[in-house]
């Protein structure tokens, strides 16, 4: 009971989302670090789609379903969709910087929501 109260579905989804955004930050940083590496293919970490699919399909009631979400939200993909440069790399630094900024804002939003969630709990505990 107390477990459900403290670690409910919203907190769990927010935690997974924040963790995904944090890992995506690493992958995007890697693209930027390799902007001058010839032949480098850009990578991305697609957690948002996997996470929302997992949430809508299971509703993660059991711990087994929760660990399923954990697995579903882990995949680094090679992205060959953007045009190649002369040196065989397809990293566009402007796109990467935009994705990075967006990812940072998303992460901050998840953390703020999680914080508000904790605030609600705190209010309930203290009764004021």
């Amino acid at each position, binding site marked *: 009971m107390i477990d459900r109260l403290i670690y409910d579905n919203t907190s769990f989804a927010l935690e997974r989302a924040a963790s995904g955004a944090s890992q995506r930050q690493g992958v995007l*940083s*890697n693209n930027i*670090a390799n*902007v001058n*590496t*010839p032949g480098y293919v850009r990578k991305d970490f697609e957690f948002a789609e996997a996470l929302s699919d997992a949430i809508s399909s299971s509703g993660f009631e059991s711990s087994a379903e929760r660990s399923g979400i954990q697995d579903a939200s882990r*995949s680094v993909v090679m992205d060959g969709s953007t045009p190649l440069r002369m040196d065989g790399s397809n990293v566009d*630094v402007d796109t990467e910087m935009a994705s990075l900024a967006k990812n940072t804002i998303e992460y901050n939003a998840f*953390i703020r929501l999680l*914080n508000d969630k904790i605030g609600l709990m705190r209010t309930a505990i203290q009764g004021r």
Partner: protein
Amino acid sequence: MSMFDALNISASGLSAERIRMDVVSANLANANTTRTLDGGPYRRREALFSEVAGEFGGGVVNGSNSGVGGVRVASVVQDQSPLRMVFDPGHPDADANGYVALPNVNVVTEMVDMISASRAYEANATAFQSAKQMAMRALELGR
């Protein structure tokens, strides 16, 4: 993937771009050097970048690397393109026909490389900054 991986990856990018900048500086400084430690005129050098395979994301599977681990300078190679021949019979390093072999450094190429390295450095610094800010935000959870 640990909390500081994004920071380490950006740091690897920063140090690689700095090395590229050092190489460009050496090329510009030696644009007219006719005597090197190996003998003969200076040859333009170039930093070769290579991707580092990380464990996060699976690493190298069947020759294709999906892991993320940053970047490193694999080696600094000499440019083997022909040297610049300038007619200057009075020069002590001139050959029998009066031609001096000057380094194959093209100042315009070096300038372009320099700007490219400096912009890439800035991009890495920005990525580092956002990752740092994210880590600081996580520390504020529950405050």
